[in-house]
């Protein structure tokens, strides 16, 4: 590949997209034979005298490509469709050194390559505590019981057959791991937005409000003020959910995601949806709901997912994901092609409600402009923002700042650290900064 870092402002000739470095060298050395076979159109463009071709026009236009001059593939060639083969860069990735065993690790969503607000299900980030399974839905059960038999009229068991007969809701919500951006609490640690913010997704989920199930079991809502959600996997992950959120109707048991069933990695066939709350509470492979009169202090709310403060105290039961935003293009680890016009685009979200406004700065936060928000804005969902920018070729620092409908303004690193120090791991919602240098390379920096 051509070294764009040291050659800013040079649009890459199209054929090079398909050539490896070795192949480019081969072309330079005059060995072009292989090109004629594998890269007909591209080869022709390179093999012909460039000056002549340039005068006539673009070879991609002058030489009709094979897709214009041949028969394409029939329907149902792929019974389940796949992305183009040219999209191989757009995949989930692990961050090296984060975890030793893949069963208790994370893969990150490639936010740098995504549009709009919906995360394709196959790119949804993964966080498993003890590996994932592909559970037979015919054998899956959901039990609703009480920490004490007196807290409900009757403990019940539901099959998927039962759950899918019940009144159905579909809602778009973001899902962010509490540890998203956690690697960056103390200092810059990772190069791209995939690794800084990629434990983030947004899907349309379909399922049954948990309230309906609890009412079906005759739960005593006066006494039962907490809900324990438990997974069916080996870790049988558990988290405490406040009954107020269940009563509001917004917590639901979901089987659908983006028009199809949940993916196995995301909890097939049943998971909990707890809008605005960190992902760990959205228990996957949901097998049991227990109503209780006290919180549970489970492992993931007593050993992990607790926020260390400078005082040495840990914040327990910290659950809400506060307003946050990030510019996804241009972002760290990318290079701008040239000076001139760009559409800066990014995502904003708040666990407390709707995004009201997003401001963007290109000078490290000295001055801000309000970005365009792509509506309709959904409650506790990713919200796409865009803003025009003409890059003058000089150094710049790009930032975005979200404001939600409670009036909360996304804080700077300096403000957040003044209260929470640098070792919290969880709930880092600081303003993200991307530095652009003259070469066009964009890198991760932290502005206080």
């Amino acid at each position: 590949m051509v070294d764009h870092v040291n050659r800013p402002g040079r649009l890459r000739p199209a054929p090079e997209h398909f050539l490896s470095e070795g192949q480019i060298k081969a072309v330079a050395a005059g060995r072009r034979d292989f090109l004629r076979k594998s890269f007909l159109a591209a080869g022709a463009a390179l093999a012909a005298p460039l000056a002549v071709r340039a005068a006539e026009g673009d070879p991609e236009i002058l030489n009709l490509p094979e897709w214009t001059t041949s028969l394409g593939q029939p329907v149902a060639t792929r019974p389940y469709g796949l992305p183009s083969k040219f999209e191989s860069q757009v995949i989930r990735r692990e961050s090296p050194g984060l975890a030793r065993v893949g069963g208790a690790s994370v893969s990150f969503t490639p936010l740098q390559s995504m549009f709009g607000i919906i995360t394709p299900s196959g790119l949804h980030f993964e966080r498993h505590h003890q590996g994932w399974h592909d559970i037979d839905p015919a054998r899956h059960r959901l039990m609703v019981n009480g920490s004490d038999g007196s807290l409900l009229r009757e403990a019940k068991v539901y099959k998927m057959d039962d759950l899918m007969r019940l009144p159905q809701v579909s809602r778009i919500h973001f899902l962010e791991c509490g540890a998203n951006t956690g690697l960056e609490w103390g200092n810059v640690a990772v190069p791209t937005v995939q690794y800084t913010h990629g434990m983030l997704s947004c899907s349309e989920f379909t399922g049954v409000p948990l309230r309906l199930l609890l009412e079906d079991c005759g739960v005593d809502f006066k006494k039962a003020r907490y809900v324990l959600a438990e997974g069916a996997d080996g870790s049988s992950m558990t988290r405490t959910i406040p009954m107020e959120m269940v009563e509001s109707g917004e917590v639901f048991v979901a089987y659908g995601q983006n028009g199809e069933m949940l993916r196995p990695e995301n909890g097939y066939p049943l998971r909990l949806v707890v809008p605005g709350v960190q992902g760990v509470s959205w228990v996957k492979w949901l097998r049991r709901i227990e109503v209780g009169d006290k919180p549970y202090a489970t492992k993931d709310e007593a050993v992990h997912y607790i926020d260390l403060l400078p005082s040495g105290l840990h914040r327990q039961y910290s659950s809400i994901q506060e307003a946050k935003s990030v510019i996804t293009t241009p972002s760290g680890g990318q290079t701008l092609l040239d000076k001139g016009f760009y559409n800066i685009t990014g995502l904003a979200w708040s666990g407390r409600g709707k995004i009201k406004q997003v401001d963007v700065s290109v000078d490290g936060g000295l001055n801000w402009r309000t970005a365009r928000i792509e509506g309709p804005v959904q409650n506790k969902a990713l919200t796409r923002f865009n803003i025009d920018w003409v890059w003058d070729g000089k150094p710049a620092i790009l930032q975005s700042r979200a404001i939600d409908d409670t009036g909360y303004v996304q804080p700077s690193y300096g403000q957040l650290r003044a209260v929470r120090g640098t070792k919290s791991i969880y709930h880092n919602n600081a303003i993200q900064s991307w530095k652009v240098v003259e070469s066009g390379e964009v890198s991760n920096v932290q502005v206080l």
Partner: protein
Amino acid sequence: MSRFSKSILVLALFGASTASFAFDNFKGIGRPATPAEIKAWDIDVRPDFKGLPKGSGSVDRGQELFEEKCASCHGTFGESNEVFTPLVGGTSKEDSKTGRVAALATGELPQRTTFTKVATISTVFDYIQRAMPWTAPKSLKPDDVYAILAYMLNLSELVPADFTLSDKNIAEVQKLLPNRNGMTTDHGLWPGAPAAKGGIGNGGKPDVRNTACMKNCKPQVLVGSTLPDYARNAHGNLADQSRSFGPVRGVKTGESVAVASIAPEPSAELDLATKNGCMACHGVNNKIVGPGYTEVQLRYKDQPNAADRLVTKVKEGGQGVWGSIPMPPNGQLKDDDAKTLVKWILSGAK
């Protein structure tokens, strides 16, 4: 039913937030859970010990179990940082008196261990019982869980070597936990009722307050941290991680790696290895906790008795050949299966 009356019904179902459902509304949906079913799944243990099973276990028994079932990931003394964060260490006798781990405030801990954090002993019991050991969760009997927890408490210097932990004395042990007073719920991140109304936290009040300044917001831009070169180049070739068309390209930070199928081809032996939990610690070509199978093959390929010796090792466990983390015994594995797996590994695990 007319469309009109149907919509009235829907309104009745969803209209008022206080609406309650009569049981018969969802007639034919779900069925009562039996006592045996509830017993089989309701295994959680709360901080007030609701749900705690009866039983007991000694430190000695715990040590045996720990070495057999836990040490391969956590180290013999729960100190290992190889696979997971350490379980014990970082706490003092003084912490056990105050209930606050002092090192958490001074920042002198290189890494927090479970016992520097956890404030409720029920949490540890609950978690071991529901999720451990890593490859065979829920295989421990309550007495085993008491014993393993007793050993961990002894490693943390909270109970003597001759101690036996039981449902009778666990509440006393709770009073010794080094960080039992180390949690606060005085924050705005709990989405339910606040403490003032019998819930948790301050009712959603944020702890930082930024303002939406638009012009000349500060005298200068202070860059607190930039990306170090080693971090820039530690995530593979970033040129391969953005599209090759559009407004930007990924920067080149290494050589391109052909996107080959990393997943091994399916095989009966691989299935067998997966089912028996081998793949949690071994890759086919890569070290995870233990060596990759192709590494094993390389080491043993010229040794005549290798197959028999490895079958014994797979069954009984071992330590020292590949590092300090021991391989746990796999008594559950049938002899024939162990032989099949070893033969497969020594032939290149293809």
